C-alpha cells in the first residue's frame, strides 16, 4: 500500500516498467491493491460456490458472467470523475426515489410483494440503486455544510434517509432497508456528528425497545424469540440457524475438505448457495478457511478505509468511507447471521453468494471508490 502511494506521488523516480504499469492503471482508473483483493475474494467465492451448488458448472458459469459484468460496471464507474457524481447527486437521488415509489405503487396495485422494475429486457431493483445514491446524496448534502454538522442539518439528513428506508422496508425487504439506512448513517457518522448526539440517539433507541416490544404483533415477537433461541422453532425459521451452526461447528479447525461438506451437499443447510454460503465455507474449509476469508474481507475494507483517508475532498472522503463501511456491514451482518450472533435477515454474503443484483451495485460502489482514488490531483508533482 505504501509502495503504491509512493509511486503515485513520485511517478518519474522509478524504473520505466514500474512507471509504465502505474501509469496504465492510473490511466484506466483502477486501484490495483483493491482489485487484487476483490479478485481474490471472487475466486475463493467461486470455489465455495462450486461446492455449495453441488458442482453445478452451469450455475458457476452464470455467476462468472455476472461477476464479469459487475467488474465491467466497476471499471465504467471508476472512469467517471467524482465531481460528476457530486454534480448528479440530487438528480440521481430523486430519480431512484421515484423508482422506489413506482415499485411501491405497482406492488400496492398488484397486491403482492414487489421489488423489481422491468423495462423490457432490463429488470432491476430500485432499492439496490438506492444503496449507492443514498451515500452520494448525503455526502453531497453534507460536503458544503459546516463541520461538524448542526442538529438542523442532521435532521434534514435524517428525513432524506428515512423515506427510502421506509419504502424499502415495506416492500418488504428488511435486509436492503437496513443496508440503505446504514449507508446513510455511516455518512452522517463520518461527517463528525457529535458523540453526545450519537449517544443520545442510541439511548433513545434502547429505551424505546420495551415500548416497541409492547406494540409488536405476536408473530413478530415470536420471530425475535426465535432469534434469541433458535431451538424454540427447530423446523421453522430456527431450522436455518440450527443447520448453519451445525455446518460451521462440524467443520472444526481444518474443515471436512472442499466438496466434502455433508450439510450442504445433502441439502440440510438451506439456501447454501445464497445467503447461507458461509456455512459451506465453515463446514468444508474449517476455522482456517473462515479466518482466511475474513482476512481477505478485512484487507479490502482496510484498503477502502485507506483510500477514503487519502481522499482530498469532503464529498469523496465521506462517499468512499460510507461505501466501504456499508460493504463491511453487509458481510458482517451475513456472517453474524450465519454464525447465529445476529437475527436472520435476508442478506447475501457480498461477492460470494450466488445472485445478481447486489453484486452489480457492490462493484459499482468499488468503481466509485477507485474513481475517487485515481482522480486525485497529484499534489507532489
Amino acid at each position, binding site marked *: 500500500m505504501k509502495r503504491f502511494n509512493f509511486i503515485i506521488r513520485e511517478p518519474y523516480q522509478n524504473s520505466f516498467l514500474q512507471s509504465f504499469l502505474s501509469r496504465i492503471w492510473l490511466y484506466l482508473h483502477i486501484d490495483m491493491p483493491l482489485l487484487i483483493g476483490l479478485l481474490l475474494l471472487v475466486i475463493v467465492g467461486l470455489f465455495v460456490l462450486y461446492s455449495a451448488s453441488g458442482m453445478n458448472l452451469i450455475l458457476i458459469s452464470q455467476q462468472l458472467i455476472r461477476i464479469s459484468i459487475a467488474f465491467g460496471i466497476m471499471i465504467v464507474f471508476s472512469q467517471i470523475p467524482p465531481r460528476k457524481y457530486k454534480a448528479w447527486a440530487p438528480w440521481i437521488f430523486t430519480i431512484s426515489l421515484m423508482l422506489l415509489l413506482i415499485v411501491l405503487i405497482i406492488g400496492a396495485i398488484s397486491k403482492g410483494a414487489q421489488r423489481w422494475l422491468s423495462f423490457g429486457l432490463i429488470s432491476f431493483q430500485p432499492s439496490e440503486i438506492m444503496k449507492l445514491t443514498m451515500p452520494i446524496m448525503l455526502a453531497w448534502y453534507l460536503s*458544503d455544510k*459546516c*463541520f*461538524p454538522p448542526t442538529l438542523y442539518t442532521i435532521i434534514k439528513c435524517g428525513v432524506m434517509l428515512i423515506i427510502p428506508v421506509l419504502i424499502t422496508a415495506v416492500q418488504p425487504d428488511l435486509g436492503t432497508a437496513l443496508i440503505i439506512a446504514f449507508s446513510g448513517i*455511516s455518512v452522517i*457518522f*463520518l*461527517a*463528525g456528528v457529535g458523540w453526545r448526539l450519537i449517544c443520545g440517539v442510541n439511548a433513545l433507541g434502547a429505551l424505546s425497545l420495551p415500548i416497541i416490544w409492547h406494540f409488536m404483533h405476536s408473530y413478530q415477537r415470536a420471530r425475535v424469540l426465535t432469534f434469541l433461541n433458535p431451538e424454540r422453532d427447530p423446523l421453522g425459521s430456527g431450522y436455518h440457524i440450527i*443447520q448453519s*451452526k*451445525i*455446518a*460451521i*461447528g*462440524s*467443520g*472444526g*479447525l481444518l474443515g471436512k475438505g472442499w466438496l466434502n461438506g*455433508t*450439510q450442504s*451437499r*445433502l*441439502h*440440510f443447510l438451506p439456501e447454501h448457495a445464497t445467503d447461507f454460503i458461509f456455512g459451506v465455507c*465453515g*463446514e468444508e474449509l*474449517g*476455522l482456517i478457511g*473462515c*479466518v482466511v476469508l*475474513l482476512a481477505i*474481507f*478485512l484487507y479490502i*475494507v*482496510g484498503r477502502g*478505509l485507506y483510500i*477514503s*483517508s487519502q481522499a482530498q475532498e*469532503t464529498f469523496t*472522503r*465521506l462517499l468512499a*468511507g460510507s461505501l466501504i*463501511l456499508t460493504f*463491511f456491514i453487509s458481510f*458482517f451482518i451475513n*456472517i*453474524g447471521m450465519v*454464525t*447465529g*450472533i445476529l437475527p436472520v435477515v435476508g442478506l447475501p454474503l457480498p461477492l460470494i453468494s450466488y445472485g445478481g443484483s447486489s453484486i452489480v451495485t457492490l462493484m459499482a460502489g468499488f468503481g466509485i471508490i477507485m474513481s475517487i482514488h485515481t482522480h486525485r490531483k497529484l499534489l507532489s508533482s
Partner: protein
Amino acid sequence: MTRKLILKDYDQEKRLFQRRLIVAAIVIILLVGLLVFRLIYLQICQHELYSTMSKKNRLEFLPIEPNRGLIYDRNGILLAEDQPVFSLDIIPDKVQNLKKTIADLQKIVNISQNNLDQFYQAFRQHRTFSSIPLKLNLSDEEVARFYVNQYQFPGVIINARMLRYYPLGETMAGVLGYVGRIDNYDLINLDSTNYSASNFIGKNGIEKYYEQQLHGQVGYQQVEIDASGRIVRTLNRTPPIPGDNLYLTVDSRLQSAAKKALSHERGAVVAIEPRSGEVLALVSNPGFDPNLFVQGIDAKQYKKLLTSSAKPMYNRAISGQYPFASIIKPFLALEGLDSDIITPQYTIYDPGWFKLPNTNHIYLDWNWKSGGHGNVNVTKAIIVSSDPFFYNLAVMLGINRIDDILNRFGFGRLTGIDMLDEASGLIPSPKWKMRVFGNSWYTGDTIISGIGQGFMLTTPLQLAQATGTLANRGLRFKPHLLLKLQTSDGQISDQEPVAEDPVMLSRNEAWHVVIKAMQGVVTSEQPWGTARIRFGIHPKYTIAAKTGTGQVYSSRSRDENETDVTNMPKRLRNHSLFIGFAPVRHPQIAVAVIVEHSPIAGTVAREVLDYYFGLHKHEKV
C-alpha cells in the same frame, strides 16, 4: 457559496474525519474479532457437539424388511412363496401436498379406493419418512408410465417388494391362512422394531400361528440421505435374517384329492397319520382364494365372503362343531366292554325302537331298518349301527362313564393343533346342564347321548385324532401341521410327535372287538355293514370305519343311504359323518369326514383313502 467555503476549516475537518475513520476501524476490528471468537467457539469449543449433530443429520438407519419364510408341504411342494412385484410407494415426509399428489397419481396409475384406504391405514402407523406402498403389484405399463412422469412426483418412488403368493390357492387356504397388511389390531401385540420395515403379517392359519418363525429378523442399513429423502449412498448394512422355511405335514396332493372329493359340498376332511399325529390333509369346503387378501381385498368382496351362507371363511375342519351322531358308538362300546358292563356276547333284541322300563316314551332307531335288527350283540350293533343297543348301553353306562371315555379320547377340549381358532366341541355333564340351562340331567339326555345326539358336539379334527387313537389301540398323539423348520442358514429342526395321555383299557380285547366290528362296517355282508355300499368293491387295503348321520331336521329321515331326499330343502337334509383308519393292522392313515346336508361322507372318505394308497403304491414302484 464562497462565503461558506471560506468559513470551512479544511485541516480541522480532515482531522475530524480521520478520527472518525479510526473509530470506525477500531469498531471493525472489534466486530471481526467477535466473528473470529464466534467461529472459534463454534468450530473448536463446540466442534464435538456439532460434529455429532451433523453425523446424525445425514445418517439414517433404514430398516430392511426380511424375506418371509417359504412354506412347503411334506414332499417339498411350494405352498407359499414370495414373488417380486413393483409397488408405488409414497414417502409422506417428502411430499408437499399428499392429497394433490395422490390425485395426480390417479391420472397415470389406476388406484382403487381400497388402495387408498390401506395406504391411509399404513400412513397412520408408519413413521412419515418411511416409504408406504400406495399400490402393490403395478403392471409393467404402469411402471413405465410412472417413470415418464416421475419428475412431477418428488417423494413418490417405485419400490421392488415381495408379495406373498399361494400357488395352490383355495386348496390350502384353510391350512395356510394368509398374510395381509398390518392393521390396528395387529399393532397391539407387535414388536414395532422388528416390524418397522414390514407391511404384512400372518392373519390366519399357519401364517399366523408361525408368524414369529416366518417373519424373520429385521435388518438395517445406515444410509446417507439428503433432505429430500434420497439415499446418496449406503454406509453399512446389517442384513435382515430371513424367516424360517416351514415344511408342513400336509400332503398337498392328498389335500387336493380331498378337496376334489368334496366338490361343491360343504364339509371337512381331516386325515392324520396315527403314529405321529401328523396331519396329512385338512380341508374345509368351500374355501376362499387367499391371494385376494394379500393385495388387500376390497370391502365388497370381503363382505360377500363373510355373508355367504356357505361360510367360505369358516374353517370347518377345526372350528366346525357337529353332533357326533353314530360315530360315538365305537367309543361307547369300548367303555362298555372295558368296564365289564357288557361282554362281547351280551345280546339284546332290537325291535327298531327302545323304551325305558316303566315309561311310555319310545326312542326310535331313526336311522336304519324299520323292522329292527333282531338280536344284536356289540359287534353287530356297530356294523349295522343299531340305535336301540346303544340307547340301552348308554343307560347302563350312565352319563359320567360316557363323559369319561369321551374325555379320555380328547373330545370336549382343544387338541392343541398348531392352528388358531380351534373349537373345543362339547361333552355335556349334569353340572354343565345345570349351569347353562338351569335344570337337571334327565335319563333321556343320557339315552340320546348313546347315539351321539343331544348337546354333545365335536370337530372333524377331534374325530380324526380319536380315530387315530383307535387305530393306535390307545396311543394318542397331538395333531400337528408342522413337519420341520428350516432356518435361513439351512439348519433343520424336526417337529417330534407329541404323545398325549394314552387311553388305557384294563381289557385289551375290547380294542380287538371294536376294531373288528368297525372293519365289519365296511366289509360285512351278513349283516350288511353301513359303509359296505361305499366300499362295496373291496379296496386294496383293510379298513376299520364307522358312519354317522347327523340329524338336522327332526323328520326322522330313516335311510342314510337313500338319496331320495331331493324334494327336501338342502339346508334341512342330514349331515353325514365318517371315520376310518387303514390299514387295520398297521394303520398309516386315520380320516374323519363330515359333509353337511349330504350323505356322501363315505364316498369322500373312499376317494381320499384310495388316492392315498394309490399314491403310496405308486411311490414304491
